[in-house]
């Protein structure tokens, strides 16, 4: 039976020839992850289970990235709790301050996600690894606890919606713009309980990092997973992480719940207005909106390509005096590469603050909290009420080009206005 990527992966992990939407499967997992907020709850449940050891010390990843470096005493206690569990169980992939990175930037870098893998994480943006051809999905702490014990989880096989992108992208338009545009088209529950599968000539031409940005936000359309075929680019990308993998494609005559064909040749850089990621508009419609803070970073846009885009805009320019700009490389390796490439110097000279990796401001944790009435333009993934601070603050989402250009202008602008 012809299958989508999601169906192929779920079938192969539950010892079945094929599966169809609606089937329930108990499937074997290749990786189970959690962070400093979700893992403590999972660890308590793991103990309540009476489990004595994790199913595989190499297949559980604990990454303390949300409120780290510890923002307060309570956060420190949570990280300590996770650290002690990691030591007690000899967890191979435990990452703490110093080698910690934002989990969804770090996991691909560590070579822990690959085409055909089945991954769950107690973090909603676990769907990021779909860009590498993994079926990866966010779950809660109880699911994580059970999975740490038995190495399996239950899944209802989702329907798949296929998104084909054709045409040629304009300058300054990339993965973030494509995914904000897509969520704008289908809404924040447009793919609820379903898998999204992305393809077409635009996707083939897109870098793996831009695909990671897109897969990352599949959850913002309610999706269970956001998948990309693993093509020659994926294979090359993973070679750098020391992995030798094969290409993986959906079957040609797989059946889809819905097929969307978007010609994106005329797509402008996108901005999602408060307070939902579905409020997608062209950057030109956002022109003139004053910003108090600009954040470049997060599991959505904290990779080297994102920092290069922001630096391209900021090179030889200054952040507007009314704007606080914060740049957060996603991992230590990305940070180091940004230093080696001179990007960090560009940021600092432009008047931006550069931070150690952390999820920090994206979820209103620390490192850039908004006061009432303040506006942030951010390369992060959510603009819900109160997401980055005060319930009466406002978050706009965009890609790094628009964010950096707007930091210079002091208001949301098209990058060409600053770069030309």
């Amino acid at each position, binding site marked *: 039976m012809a299958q989508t990527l999601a169906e192929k992966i779920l079938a192969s992990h539950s010892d079945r020839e094929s599966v169809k939407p609606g089937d329930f499967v108990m499937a074997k997992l290749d990786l189970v992850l959690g962070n400093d*907020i979700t893992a403590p709850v999972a660890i308590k449940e793991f103990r309540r289970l009476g489990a004595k050891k994790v199913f595989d010390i190499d297949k559980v990843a604990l990454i303390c990235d949300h409120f780290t470096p510890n923002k307060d005493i309570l956060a420190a206690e949570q990280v300590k709790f996770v650290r002690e569990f990691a030591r007690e169980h000899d967890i191979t992939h435990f990452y703490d301050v110093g080698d910690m990175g934002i989990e969804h930037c770090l996991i691909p870098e560590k070579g822990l996600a690959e085409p055909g893998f089945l991954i769950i994480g107690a973090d909603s943006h676990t769907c990021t690894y779909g860009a590498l051809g993994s079926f990866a999905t966010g*779950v809660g702490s*109880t699911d994580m606890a059970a999975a740490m*014990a038995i190495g399996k989880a239950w899944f209802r096989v989702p329907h798949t919606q296929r998104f084909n992108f054709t045409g040629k992208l304009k300058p300054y338009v990339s993965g973030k713009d494509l995914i904000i545009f897509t969520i704008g088209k289908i809404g924040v529950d447009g793919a609820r*309980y379903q898998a999204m599968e992305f393809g077409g000539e635009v996707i083939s031409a897109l870098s793996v990092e831009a695909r990671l940005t897109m897969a990352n936000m599949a959850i913002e359309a309610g999706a269970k997973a956001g998948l990309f075929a693993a093509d020659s680019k994926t294979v090359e990308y993973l070679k750098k992480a020391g992995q030798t993998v094969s290409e993986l494609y959906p079957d040609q005559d797989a059946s889809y719940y819905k097929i969307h064909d978007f010609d994106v040749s005329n797509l402008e850089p996108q901005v999602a207005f408060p307070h939902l990621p579905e409020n997608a508009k062209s950057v030109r419609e956002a022109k003139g909106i004053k910003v108090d803070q600009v954040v470049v970073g997060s599991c959505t846009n904290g990779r080297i390509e994102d920092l290069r885009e922001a630096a391209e805009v900021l090179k030889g320019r200054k952040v507007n005096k009314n704007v606080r700009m914060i740049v957060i490389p996603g991992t230590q390796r990305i940070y180091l590469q940004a230093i080696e490439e001179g990007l960090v110097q560009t940021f600092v000279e432009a008047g931006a603050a550069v931070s150690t990796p952390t999820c920090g401001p994206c979820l209103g944790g620390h490192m850039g909290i908004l006061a009432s009435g303040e506006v942030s333009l951010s390369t992060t993934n959510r603009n*819900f009420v109160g997401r980055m601070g005060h319930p009466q603050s406002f978050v706009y989402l965009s890609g790094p080009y628009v964010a950096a250009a707007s930091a210079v202008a002091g208001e949301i602008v098209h990058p060409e206005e600053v770069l030309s």
Partner: protein
Amino acid sequence: MKLTGRVFVFGSDIDTDAIIPARYLNKFDLDHLKAHCMEDADPTFAERVKLGDVIVAGKNFGCGSSREHAPLAIKAAGVSCVIADSFARIFYRNAINIGLPILEVSLEKKVKDGDLVTVDLDRGIVEVNGEKFQAQAFPPELMEIMQSGGLIEYVKKELEVGEEND
């Protein structure tokens, strides 16, 4: 099981940041979560909610983050059941896993704050203002998890079977 409670009505796309803002996630403690439940959607909710009350919402309730703190906060606040047009996937899964009753019924436009609603959880029937509504049935596989008393109890059985086979 039948329960009766006062209704609190919320709109659509109530996200997990509204249910329990991330600024309170530095501590995993049910009393702490309860005190801030629904704070960014309705700052007065936590002090007004009483044991047994029911949340009624529109579509996509619980969208956003995977934080299990969201259904846990609602459960800790004493809410007996959440009724919504639809639930975001992770929230739905979490609610089942922790044993917070949820039902899919389109009720948001038919009730107002303070209405009394009666819910028959076993049959999925909701009664309010003299009208009866039938909720979407749960798939049998999920019923099995729920009847085991949540995922932990369900997996405990699996672990025991595994140890016997070792």
